[in-house]
């Protein structure tokens, strides 16, 4: 059976845990989505924007030197970092932006962590002539000052959120609060496969283009399915996008990499699946970092885009069914992979994506040269250069 079911559930996960004020808007969104997803003009527009504006299809790249370095399975990178705005987020914001316009909404709002989804939303809003407001944790506006300026440059208003831990979780609270207040004329462009139904469904369907392309590209270049697919998981949209077309192929191992921060044992991490328990946040029933009384615990990751205490409900489902394996990569390991990819392949990955690269290298070592690992390189690392510079870490030895 195709998931989610008609109640927006992936097994026991998902649902719609939102204030009553939003319920009719969520039902309307679901109706609009199914209506326009089948509409010829909408589909043509989506295809055109993904191709001519976002730069799709993105290349599938055989990382020869990284493969040599690992000394095992072949590592292939799906280059979402080469899209317009530099991350997979644009796939979804083009989809939802068009949905907003087809539904007659003139105004969009979004939450953002690292700023990638905020930039992608502001970009599409500029192109489609929509008014745009982005909510961003104050802590993140400091960590990602460049992206704040980019959003303003694109004509968006950026609202710093000071409540709670002043990160992505709180930005999402504030976006939802704002939506409750302006629900009649505002479209909420949610950035991940989380939140209340139908967002996990909509975002997955707009992101599956990553996996669909990679699957046919790999067939073309290597004549086969991958043995493993690796992607980082914060909310989990690039992972769901690349995993989805492979779910039906049981022989393909799927690995989601959560941010282990300073280590899973320290409690300072963002690994909702490996370190959390089921609970309710941001409209969904899913795995959450929380204390024994259900207070949500702040997440920690060097990567602002993974710094989120929850995870999309479909990941929670895939975790419990065992179809996807979830592992952790620490801040330190991610930074090492950041250096490694820069030096060996001339590609500076987003710190989020560096988590996937780190695990892929480890996995490749345990596999044979005849095997293939597909990695979602979800974004480029320009935004993180300053963070890495400030760390003063120098695991690669020379770039000082």
């Amino acid at each position, binding site marked *: 059976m195709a998931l989610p079911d008609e109640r927006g559930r992936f097994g026991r996960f998902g649902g719609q845990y939102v*204030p009553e*004020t939003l319920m009719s808007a969520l039902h309307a969104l679901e109706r609009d989505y199914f209506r326009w997803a089948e509409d010829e003009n909408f589909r043509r527009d989506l295809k055109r924007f993904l191709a001519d504006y976002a730069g799709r299809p993105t290349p599938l790249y055989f990382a020869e030197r990284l493969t040599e370095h690992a000394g095992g399975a072949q590592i292939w990178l799906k280059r979402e970092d080469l899209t317009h705005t530099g991350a997979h987020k644009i796939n979804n914001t083009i989809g939802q932006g068009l949905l907003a316009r087809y539904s007659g909404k003139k105004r969009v709002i979004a939450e953002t962590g690292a700023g990638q989804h905020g930039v992608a939303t502001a970009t599409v809003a500029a192109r489609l002539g929509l008014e745009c407001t982005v909510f961003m944790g104050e802590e993140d506006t400091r960590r990602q000052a460049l992206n704040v300026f980019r959003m303003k440059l694109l004509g968006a208003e950026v609202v710093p959120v000071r409540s709670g831990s002043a990160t992505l979780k709180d930005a999402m609270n504030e976006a939802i609060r704002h939506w409750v207040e302006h629900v009649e004329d505002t479209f909420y462009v949610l950035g991940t496969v989380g939140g209340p139904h139908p967002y996990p469904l909509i975002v997955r369907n707009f992101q599956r283009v990553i996996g669909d392309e990679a699957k046919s590209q790999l067939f073309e270049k290597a004549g086969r399915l991958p043995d493993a697919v690796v992607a980082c998981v914060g909310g989990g949209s690039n992972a769901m996008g690349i995993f989805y077309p492979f779910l039906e192929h049981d022989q393909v191992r799927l690995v989601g990499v959560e941010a282990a921060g300073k280590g899973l044992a320290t409690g300072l991490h963002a690994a909702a699946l490996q370190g959390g328990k089921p609970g309710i946040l941001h409209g969904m029933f899913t795995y959450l970092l929380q204390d024994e009384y259900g207070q*949500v615990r702040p997440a920690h990751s060097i990567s602002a885009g993974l710094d989120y205490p929850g995870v999309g409900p479909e990941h929670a489902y895939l975790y419990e069914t065992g179809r996807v394996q979830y592992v952790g990569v620490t801040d330190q390991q991610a930074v090492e992979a950041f250096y490694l990819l820069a030096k060996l392949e001339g590609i500076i990955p987003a710190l989020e994506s560096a988590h996937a690269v780190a695990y892929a290298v480890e996995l490749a070592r345990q596999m044979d040269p005849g095997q293939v690992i597909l990695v979602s390189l979800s974004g480029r690392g320009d935004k993180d250069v300053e963070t890495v510079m400030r760390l003063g870490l120098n695991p690669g030895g020379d770039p000082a």
Partner: protein
Amino acid sequence: MKTRLQEVLEARRAAGEKAFIPYITAWDPSPRITVQAVERLVRAGADALEIGVPYSDPLADGPTIQAASERALRAGFRLPDLFDLGPELVRVAGGVPLIAFTYANPVYRWGWAAFCRDLRRSGYAGLIVPDLPVEEAGPLREAADAEGLALVPLVAPTSRDRIAAICRSARGFVYAVSTTGVTGVRERLPASLSALLEEIRRHTSLPVGVGFGIGSPETAAEAARSADAVIVGSALVKRLAALSQPGADEGTILDELESFARSLASVLRKPEEGVPKP
């Protein structure tokens, strides 16, 4: 199933008056103050009380109640404290029913049934869960019914064709949200409020309370024209917030809280009876 909460509100309605339901956040800024505030609010004429359960992510609340939650959590509130506080609150409330206002996650974590059992045992009469719409409320409603607790549902201005189903699920009263938005004081209530209440009354004979945005005797009187009960939160919480300022005088602040509450209650009563005397 007729709950105690419903009986209390119906009695007020039978007298041709409107009920006053104040909200405060538990442990803001200490359990001792919560007890004293409840005592004062009851003295000022409260017919029922909402006790907010502090939560890390209160997404239906505006800045005033968010800040109260943060103060209470900083003071060390943990969920068992809600139950421990119950008997003392019941004692000072003297028969005025207490309603827990809580987000879904702490309830889920404690267990739907265990939460309702412990709520009832510690003396509460009902609960409101703002992020649990009727479609998701099944397990909690069953547990609440089993304990004789009223699970009060919310109806919003956007509810439209959902109102019938919400009213069917209602216990105690129906909580009408005056405006689209989060909790917090507003200058005026929307003109469409009376139409919303008419629509609700087509589907239920339960009392209807109005909340969100009411923070003055004027807006309370306006809401009372069509509602059976008026709920006031942020305006009271704002007064209690003064306790967390340096050099705050506790007695003065509680006196102000009480006299403000009295000014709200007085517009809901028949003029000849006036306000209940301390």
